[in-house]
């Protein structure tokens, strides 16, 4: 899944996979911080997988 998303042009910085148990709160905080940091570090500001057309029905 990750490979195909990257292939389609989603930056690796936006794709994170983690296995976090409900008891691992510190790991969750760590991962969440890393994810936000790596997305913010991206140069491209193009929105990907965001719908632009208004919703109908």
């Amino acid at each position, binding site marked *: 899944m990750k*490979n*195909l998303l990257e*292939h*389609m*042009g989603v930056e690796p910085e936006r794709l*994170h996979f983690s296995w976090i148990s409900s008891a691992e709160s510190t790991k969750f905080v760590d991962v969440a911080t890393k994810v936000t940091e790596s997305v913010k570090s991206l140069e491209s500001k*193009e929105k990907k997988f965001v719908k632009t057309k208004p919703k109908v029905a």
Partner: protein
Amino acid sequence: MKSYTDKIKEIAKRLLKEDKVDMVIGYRKGTVPLMHQPFFATSEGEVDSFVWDSNCGLNLANYITDRKERIGIVATGCNSRNIAVHVVEGKIQRDQLYIIGIPCQGMVDRHKLAAMAEGNIASVEEDEDKGTITISGQGFSKSVDKAEVLQENCSICVHRNPVLCDELVADEVTEQTREQADPYARVREIEAMSPDDKWAHFDDLLSDCIRCYACRNACPLCYCPQCFVDESNPQWVGKSVDPTDIRTFHLLRAYHCAGRCTDCGACVRSCPVGINVRDFTKKLEKDCLELYGWEAGLNTEQRPPLDTYKPEDPEDFIK
């Protein structure tokens, strides 16, 4: 391909006469040029409609899903691999089938030919000895080498001979090696792009998609009784032609075919606007080969890689 056609007819007649099968699935001339239709012959008399040439690019494995009859079926390399996938996935029993194997010489790309024609193509002739295809219509006629107008998937095909069959219609053809065919050249080209260029490439690729779902319907792998795109409760993906919805449809459909796709090209052939949706599936095929050493449909025993777990499966993407 008169010799192939004659042999198909001969075998089909015999099978029906000896009551070995209830029907034989093959192709007959389509109502429009370049598109032969699947045809089910249930009696000896119907057998004469069968044809074989370079316009038999739809995948017949698509028509055997969950069938209960005993079936004779014409199969090229890729079609036979899709039949094998069906057997593995329990969609048909091997002993229900009598496979008439075609050593395949590739299918012509109807989109390429249409682009070359100076008007609507009214008829197509194939000269086997010279290896040419002649298309003609009102006020024009043009001959080209078949090799030049092969479907891309056929020109890079490394499994032309059936992997599974009961009887061949001719001697096996020589297979190209992976080095000669270089099947992943196009995938590598895309892989080399920057993320934004990749994004733009797929935006451009899908810009004409009208979401008719012909690509899905032509694919033998897409046999779910209800496809995720048709479901409304829950609704997995928007139904509009918003670029995000279109992209989501293609991403997920391709993923459902991961490790199962044989690169038969039926999806591209059936697309009314000529979108090469194989740009998605070919990447997955390459990954399956590189990550799991897997090629779809080469036997009827092994389950596809995304359906099994092995301790040595790569997992370095999970942090």
